[in-house]
């Protein structure tokens, strides 16, 4: 138990561990002291001077971000002195700020906008010509608008302290200071630089990919989990018009803290793919017929009866719930092998300043989940090959969420029943008796299990196209029809069913997983290089 210190902030008594800063102590009781340069993941230079608070007995206002609490201290964050200071500092920020909010991507989520609106002067007194830095391409995905910069140096510190590749610096001094790279060197070849756009409190660093794409206030934020690798970074999907517009990290100190890698950040376009399967299709005697789900499933069950042993292809991109439902169906149909394929990178891409975080070599989000339900990995590191035993199988073939992109039209030609559950059409599904449209993880609820066996939930960020349904709903219904029991009606049901059938998932409830994730009983500890 750490030694506790009790102080008073704005009249509220608060006890925090010794060594806590005033800013963090205030945060713990829900008081946000405005700040720019402070970021919990990096050192505090105390240079923005916004977080100055009044401490009784101190001769000068104290920076809340570096002043540690003392017993009996009396702090005022909203006193006349504190407000006067913030009003003064905010005016200084606006002296050379271009006020180009109408064309600034940060508008609507900008700390300068918010703070000035809340506490700034009503009218500016600046009459002098403004300093102009203009726009600079920092390489990678980053554009720099120097005139909007508040010189908090969060970006410089992220690159030097967290990514530990000192590509950014403050050039010059005084009010000619500006953030820059080494001339034309830029940020190319760094793999975490997207984070500097996130931590920029204003619109100085913006994403080229997101440039002028959407206004912040039009975006819906949905908590999700990155599908780029087995790390399972917590993210928010920002959607508008049923399209993912961008991906932002979601704070989870146990997994990715405040950061995500650039691969994960930009690996969302597949969720917006337009050429989706939209209706269940039954192919019979060379003719394809779209039909209602109920009809399709009844026809499928009729054909499955006595169709022989099962071989199933699963996917490490599918949720725990999908995989569990597939496992139950395969068992109900008499059992059989489940295999999956997953892409692997040669090397990890660690974030040096945060040793438990890396872009992992396993480029799928749920290989752990697939392994736990008894699937075995086949194929090579490009997620191709390895399907010979399934391709010519003469019993039941079920393909879940593997687009068979490397397979020819003769895949499954000998199968007595070939069910293809996917998001889009594939030449490999030419012989499929049933092509069933499923939703992506962005279109429904579910969970993944990351490489340290942490189960993490994601929420529904967008609507599935047409009649596409979550795979667990389809597979769960089929399994219940075949093997008895209740069909799951929600992802929570499907997760509970998983817990009953796969021991590794036993004892953890959907609520336990919550928004922060829950470790399975036999977790493995993971560190980077």
């Amino acid at each position: 138990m750490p030694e506790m210190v009790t102080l008073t902030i704005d009249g509220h008594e608060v006890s925090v561990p010794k060594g806590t800063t005033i800013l963090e102590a205030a945060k713990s009781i829900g008081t946000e002291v405005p700040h720019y340069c402070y970021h919990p993941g990096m050192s505090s230079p105390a240079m923005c001077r916004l977080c100055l608070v009044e401490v009784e007995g101190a001769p000068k206002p104290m920076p809340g971000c570096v002043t540690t609490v003392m017993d009996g201290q009396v702090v005022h964050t909203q006193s006349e002195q504190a407000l006067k200071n913030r009003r003064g500092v905010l005016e200084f920020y606006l002296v050379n700020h271009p006020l180009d909010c109408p064309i600034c991507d940060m508008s609507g989520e900008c700390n300068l906008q918010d703070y000035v609106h809340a506490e700034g002067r009503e009218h500016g007194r600046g009459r002098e010509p403004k300093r102009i830095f203009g726009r600079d391409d920092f390489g990678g995905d980053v554009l720099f608008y120097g005139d909007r910069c508040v010189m908090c140096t969060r970006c410089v510190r992220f690159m030097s302290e967290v990514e530990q590749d000192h590509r950014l610096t403050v050039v010059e001094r005084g009010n000619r200071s500006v953030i820059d790279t080494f001339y034309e060197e830029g940020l190319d070849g760094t793999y975490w630089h997207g984070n500097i756009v996130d931590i920029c409190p204003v619109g100085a660093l913006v994403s080229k990919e997101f440039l002028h794409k959407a206004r912040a206030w039009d975006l819906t934020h949905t908590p999700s989990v990155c599908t780029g690798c087995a790390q399972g970074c917590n993210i928010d999907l920002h959607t508008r018009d049923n399209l993912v517009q961008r991906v932002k990290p979601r704070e989870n100190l146990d997994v990715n803290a405040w950061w995500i890698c650039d691969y994960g950040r930009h690996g969302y376009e597949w969720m917006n793919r337009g050429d989706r399967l939209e209706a269940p299709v039954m192919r019979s005697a060379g003719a394809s017929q779209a039909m209602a789900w109920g009809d399709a499933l009844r026809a499928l069950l009729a054909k499955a009866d006595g169709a022989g042993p099962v071989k199933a292809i699963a996917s490490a991109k599918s949720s725990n719930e999908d995989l569990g439902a597939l496992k139950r169906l395969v068992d109900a149909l008499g059992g059989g092998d489940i295999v999956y394929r997953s892409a692997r990178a040669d090397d990890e891409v660690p974030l040096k300043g945060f040793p438990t975080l890396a872009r992992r070599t396993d480029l799928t989000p749920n290989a752990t989940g697939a392994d736990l339900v008894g699937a075995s990995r086949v194929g090579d590191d490009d997620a191709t090959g390895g399907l010979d035993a399934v391709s010519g199988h003469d019993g039941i073939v079920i393909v879940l969420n593997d687009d068979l992109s490397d397979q020819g039209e003769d895949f499954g030609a000998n199968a007595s029943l070939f069910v293809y559950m996917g998001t889009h059409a594939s030449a490999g599904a030419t012989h499929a008796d049933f092509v069933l449209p499923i939703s992506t993880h962005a279109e429904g609820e579910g969970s993944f299990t990351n490489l340290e066996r942490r189960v993490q939930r994601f929420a529904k960020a967008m609507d599935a196209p047409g009649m596409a349904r979550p795979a667990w709903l389809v597979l769960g219904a089929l399994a219940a029809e075949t093997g008895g029991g209740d069909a799951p009606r929600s992802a929570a049901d499907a997760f509970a069913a998983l817990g009953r059938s796969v021991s590794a998932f036993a004892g953890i409830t959907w609520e336990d997983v919550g928004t922060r994730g829950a470790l399975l009983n036999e977790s493995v500890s993971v560190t980077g290089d």
Partner: protein
Amino acid sequence: MSDIPFKNPGWAGNTGEFELSEEEVRGADFVGDRPADGGHASGAGTMPYMLAHKEPEAPLFDGAYKDRLEKILSRYPTKQAALLPALGLAQEIRGHVSPASMDEVADALELSSAYVRGVATFYTMYNKRPVGRHLVQVCTNISCNLAGADEVVDAFLKYTDTELGETSEDGNFTVIEAECLAACGFPTCVQINSRYFENVTPTEVPKICEHLKAEGE
């Protein structure tokens, strides 16, 4: 040196109450051209200077300069601490600190190039672009200003036929304004390369310039 038509306080009896030669005021009689290097940690022998002769394409840290850099490194607990002296050496050789020089210094000290750029641009003594053989820095801060430093600047600009910061056509002079040079009792103070010229008045400016040109250093 004795015919240099400028004044140092105490020298030549222009001001002050001392009878001293210019060598005695500057310490040239004591130091010589450069302080001798006796192999100690003093810093003598490795001190960077600003020279009229500049070789923008010359290699950095070759030969004698390599020895100087190694000596500098031996005096500090970290490699990074050698950054300012190393940039000074680069400027002594090449006359200014170019991006290429920053890159080479970064390599030599195992620092990132961006970091070196950040440090180099913080300090005014590193010329970020080429300057003339003689970099004329006229203090125009308060004490010199009260004594008419603005007219001294004008005199230099007139003689060299340049604007502030420009290099004269013959490549001899670049005139800039400087902040206080800590010679406020001897205004106007002008730093030209590594030397201070004190009590400078506008009428002496052409003489100083002509002397420097003749010196041809």
